[in-house]
């Protein structure tokens, strides 16, 4: 399985990709939303682990784009952020209220800091 890790913090990328690889998956990384979109097109990952606050196309925007695009909406997404889950969901609701298309909740939501075991467990559940 191929997992794309999107985070502007290099430490998070190294950490999460180590967890991913330890669980016998392949990891690819992107450091912002723009790079992530390119990698998704190129590499067709099976799972995206996505940060919320990032430069150049935030996680909020990228999440929306993926979930409203027929080619990508099936890719499961684990949100991994310092921002609380309800804050993230509230931001998506607000965009929907503004007239944009409604989006489903992410397949999983993890708040930083996350334990490696919890992350591994979530990856396993989401891919199942």
């Amino acid at each position, binding site marked *: 399985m191929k997992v794309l890790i999107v985070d*502007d*913090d290099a*430490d*998070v990328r*190294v*950490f*999460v990709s*180590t*967890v991913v690889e*330890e669980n016998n998956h392949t990891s690819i990384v992107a450091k912002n939303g723009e790079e992530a979109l390119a990698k998704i097109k190129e590499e067709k990952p099976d799972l995206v682990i996505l940060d919320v*606050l990032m*430069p*150049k*196309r935030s996680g909020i925007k990228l999440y929306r784009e993926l979930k409203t695009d027929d080619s990508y909406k099936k890719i499961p997404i684990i949100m991994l952020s*310092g*921002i609380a889950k309800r804050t993230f969901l509230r931001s998506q609701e607000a965009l929907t209220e503004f007239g944009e298309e409604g989006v489903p909740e992410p397949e999983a939501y993890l*708040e*930083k*800091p*996350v*334990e*490696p075991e919890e992350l591994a467990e979530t990856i396993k559940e989401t891919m199942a």
Partner: protein
Amino acid sequence: MLKLLLIDDEEGIRKILAISLGKDGYLVSTAKDGKNGLEVFNREKHSIVLLDIKMPGMDGIEVLKHIKEIHPATEVIIITGHGDMDTAINALKHDASDFINKPIKDEALAIALKRAKERLSIRKKLKEYTEDLEHMVKIATEEVKRRAEFQNKLITISNDGIIATDGWGNIITYNQGAEIIFGHRRNKVIRKMNIADLYPEPIKEEFIQGLHQEIAIDHFLWREISIVSKDGESVPTRFSGSILFEKNEVIGSVGFFRDLREVKRLQQELIKSERLAATGQTVAGLAHYIKNILIGLRGGIYVTNIALAKNNTEKLKSGWSMIERNVNRITDLVLDLLSYSKERKPEFEDCYPNEIAEEVCALLEPKAKENHINIIRDFDDSIGKVSMDSQAIHRILLNLVSNAIDACIFDSSDKKIWAVQINTAREHNHMIRMDVSDNGFGMDEGVKKKLFTSFFSTKGGKGTGLGLLVTQKIIKENGGTISVDSTDGVGSTFTIRLPYRGME
């Protein structure tokens, strides 16, 4: 009708003249001697008196004196015996208006009366003019008085302390506002004190020199000075003053003092409440920031453990550097918090500002390269070894250059070639100027306003909002300045100026 009194002892003359003068339009009274004449005159106050000089009893000159005493404006025409010039001259000396000779000729009488009437008329006009003039002067005086009172009132009710002196510095005006600031009562100051007794040191000298024209100064611009009041309280005031001139001569001085105690108190309160509000924001921001550090540390430990288990040196390096980096981040955070909350005295030491700038550039170059940002150095070679707070320069530049790089990283434009430029320059009055410019996302007015006022960050969870606050604080402690010029979407330039001592 003019009242005329005829005093003559000859009954015939009295009768004839009374009839003819009555016909000419005079209101005629007659008297047969001086005593009787004065009685009638006292009652009627005639305008013209025809007075026979030779009479039994009180003689004409006596009567004339009395009439002039009672009513000096009366026209007295003397009737004298023919050729009696001495008597006539004597009468004129006593203020008689004219004289005619006996026997009385109609023509001579008519001329004398005509002249008397003319004089009466002139005198009346003159009186009117004089009265008019007096009236005008009175009105003008009142107006002047009213204005003076008005101005006086303005000075009295002014909240500002106003103190005016004569050319020798003696205090002649000292209002309520001045009482409140200086603490001395008005009656103990006005015309009793000199500014030398009242004004504090720096302005005392200036005023005295100004009054003596030892210095060519006539105006003291607004500035803050501290007044020590009668009770020993130090009162902050905003002061300005002038030396007063009239036709190039010094005539006095005036000083204006605005009491700043209330303003200062409000400022203190405002700072306090802003601090409290900012603290709440900071805690939230900090929690987020610390979460990011924590995940770096946990991740580092995890990666290190995996590497140890697998004996993978490459991974070990990567895990260990994560731990190091995040320990550094938390150290920086603690240092930032400490330097924000504590006063720090600048530590001046010999250093080379250009070298510090180069260090900072080198430190941040890897991060810049990773994000395709060029770091451009433009250092002024004439800056050599100087005495400055080298730690402060390092912190300030590290902060500003990191921010500039972040501004490029966070910029969503896809057409720019990003660059961060660091300039150094030596300026006059012992200042080193440093500019940190970027062509990143820039700032709008709203962001610019918040920049230095609160724990405000545009970097989401990646910033604490402490950086610029600390930077600004360090610059202030070093007696320097910071300013920013930024255009939304185009980029920003931060300019700092720091004083230095000595240059080789």
